[in-house]
């Protein structure tokens, strides 16, 4: 498939047009969306206007951005002005935001063409898209299997070649896990590198927007476009976007890589074999490999499933039938709030709101929420110690390749365990990328995860690129 970089170059030179690229994208969507349920909303009219504007600039000899004419899909928890935004929840069905997320403004300013909004687990709570109120997305590589989640629609859009790139959000693995399951590159950037303005909040101290792409260079380019300080997000890092694309071929010679025992143990044998093979590739490319243990990461899952629901229970209090979306009428305002929330939220969202409310309630706050905040501190220190010894870390992204529908959806703990290797990075606020490396016995892709300290995205992309090159891509 043509890369975003090639499309943007050819659109800028006039060798192709944004409109032609868009029509190709819409044709692929028309052919497969019914089967795969990737897009909740297609903004054909808006996208055609964006494409025509890019082509007009080219014809007028005006400069176009680095994503000129590149079709992009947007996770439906990103607000886009005038375009329905649902978080895959009935509680927001029909709502059209009065403003756009900063990341959407930035990709449009860079010339990208926003084709539509993609399916997710309801309010990004899930690892398979099975909790979406609008039905699950199917994995384009094997439609009997999940695409991963919560950004499963954004991953499937790129895997099915419906769009060249897409945006997702990652609170506990929601970009990296679906990237692994769909054979894509997906990055969870350093907390604060990308503005969260216009991202409907799930867990504000953990959420981060990031890129999906079919190759490392496209992911680096997309992240470069969306990163950088934004005064509209008070947690935004103060500096401008780092240079990423220019460094993807920097290699790993002289880098020290730590193989983390806890980020491999418990994974299927074929996943462990892929990580080991990736380690060999990095060593052959000049990296120095050491094995290490970060026992604190074992506590990540528990800490996450207290902290994220606690924050969610507070964030989702705003869905009360007053300002947006669904209202179920009732006698008085409290009954209306309750009837609206009961009707509007699905089971997983209710479960997490309940868990979070409980973890924050009097008598349990210290034992659960308070302890989890302290575990978070320990996690940060443990990673910091590891990065005294090595430049970056390697582990599995997920314990297995894409699983079947229904395999984990009746058992919340089994589903939560699919994020066991990705959660520690969110708790530490650091960066990690999943890159496809090898395949399982069923032919499905395996994702290898590279983890680094805050602001290490350029180094992680360079490491991922070494693995990509080794596979002949």
């Amino acid at each position, binding site marked *: 498939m043509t890369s975003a970089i090639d499309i943007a170059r050819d659109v800028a030179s006039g060798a192709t047009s944004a409109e032609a690229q868009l029509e190709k994208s819409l044709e692929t969507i028309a052919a497969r969306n019914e089967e795969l349920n990737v897009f909740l909303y297609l903004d054909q009219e808006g996208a055609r206007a964006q494409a025509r504007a890019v082509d007009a600039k080219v014809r007028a000899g005006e400069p176009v951005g680095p994503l000129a004419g590149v079709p992009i899909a947007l996770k439906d928890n990103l607000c886009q002005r005038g375009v329905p935004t649902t978080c895959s929840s009935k509680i927001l069905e029909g*709502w*059209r935001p*009065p*403003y756009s997320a900063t990341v959407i403004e930035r990709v449009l300013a860079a010339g990208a063409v926003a084709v539509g909004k993609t399916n997710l687990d309801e309010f990004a709570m899930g690892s398979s898209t099975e909790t979406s109120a609008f039905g699950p997305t199917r994995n384009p590589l094997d439609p009997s299997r999940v695409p991963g989640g919560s950004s499963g629609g954004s991953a499937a859009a790129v895997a099915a070649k419906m769009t060249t790139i897409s945006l997702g959000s990652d609170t506990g693995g929601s970009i990296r896990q679906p990237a692994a399951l769909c054979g894509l590159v997906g990055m969870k950037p350093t907390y604060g590198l990308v503005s969260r303005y216009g991202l409907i909040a799930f867990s504000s*101290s953990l959420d981060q927007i990031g890129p999906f792409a079919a190759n490392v260079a496209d992911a680096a380019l997309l992240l470069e476009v969306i990163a950088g300080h934004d005064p509209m997000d*008070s*947690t935004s*890092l103060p500096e401008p976007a780092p240079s990423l694309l220019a460094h993807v071929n920097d290699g790993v010679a002289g880098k020290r890589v730590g193989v983390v025992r806890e980020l491999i143990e418990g994974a299927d044998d074929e996943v462990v074999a892929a990580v080991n093979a990736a380690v060999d590739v990095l060593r052959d490319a000049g990296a120095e490999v050491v094995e290490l243990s970060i026992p604190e990461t*074992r*506590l990540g*899952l*528990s800490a996450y*499933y*207290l902290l994220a629901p606690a924050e969610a*229970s507070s964030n989702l209090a705003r869905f*009360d*039938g*007053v*300002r*947006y*979306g*669904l*209202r179920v*009428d009732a006698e*008085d*305002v409290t*009954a*209306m*709030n*309750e009837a609206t*929330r009961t009707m509007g939220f699905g*089971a997983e969202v*209710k*479960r997490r*709101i*309940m*868990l979070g*409310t*409980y973890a924050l*309630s009097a008598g349990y706050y210290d*034992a*659960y929420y*308070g*302890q*989890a*905040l*302290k*575990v*978070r*501190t*320990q996690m*940060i220190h443990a990673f910091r110690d590891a990065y005294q010894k090595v430049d970056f870390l390697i582990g599995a992204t997920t314990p297995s390749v894409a699983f079947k529908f229904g395999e984990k959806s009746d058992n*919340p*703990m089994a589903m*939560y365990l699919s994020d066991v290797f990705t959660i520690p990075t969110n*708790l*530490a*606020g*650091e960066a990690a990328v999943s890159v496809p490396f090898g395949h399982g016995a069923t032919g499905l892709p395996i994702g290898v995860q590279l983890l680094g300290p*805050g602001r290490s995205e350029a180094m992680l992309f360079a490491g991922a690129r070494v693995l990509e090159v080794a596979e002949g891509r």
Partner: protein
Amino acid sequence: MSAELTRDDVAKVARLARLTLSDAELDLFTEQLRGILDHAEDIAALNLEGVTATAHPFGLTNVVRADEVRESLSRDEVLAAAPDAREGRFAVPRILGEAP
């Protein structure tokens, strides 16, 4: 500790969270939340005395913008997205009952 989580606790939390649960949902959530809290016992049982809590990974402090008038969202546009709006305000069912 989570073995203590009762059906009544779950019902109380549901009321706090403004959710109505059916009897079947109460049973299911009690069982599922117990399972999740059992898993969380590994951290509830840790001795973390002296460890500070982290709410933000890089300890950024609060940011306040300059106190300058600037454009904000259009009131009409925001209200147009609400389930009910009257006279430039969000409208809700009555909050106060009749005087006793």
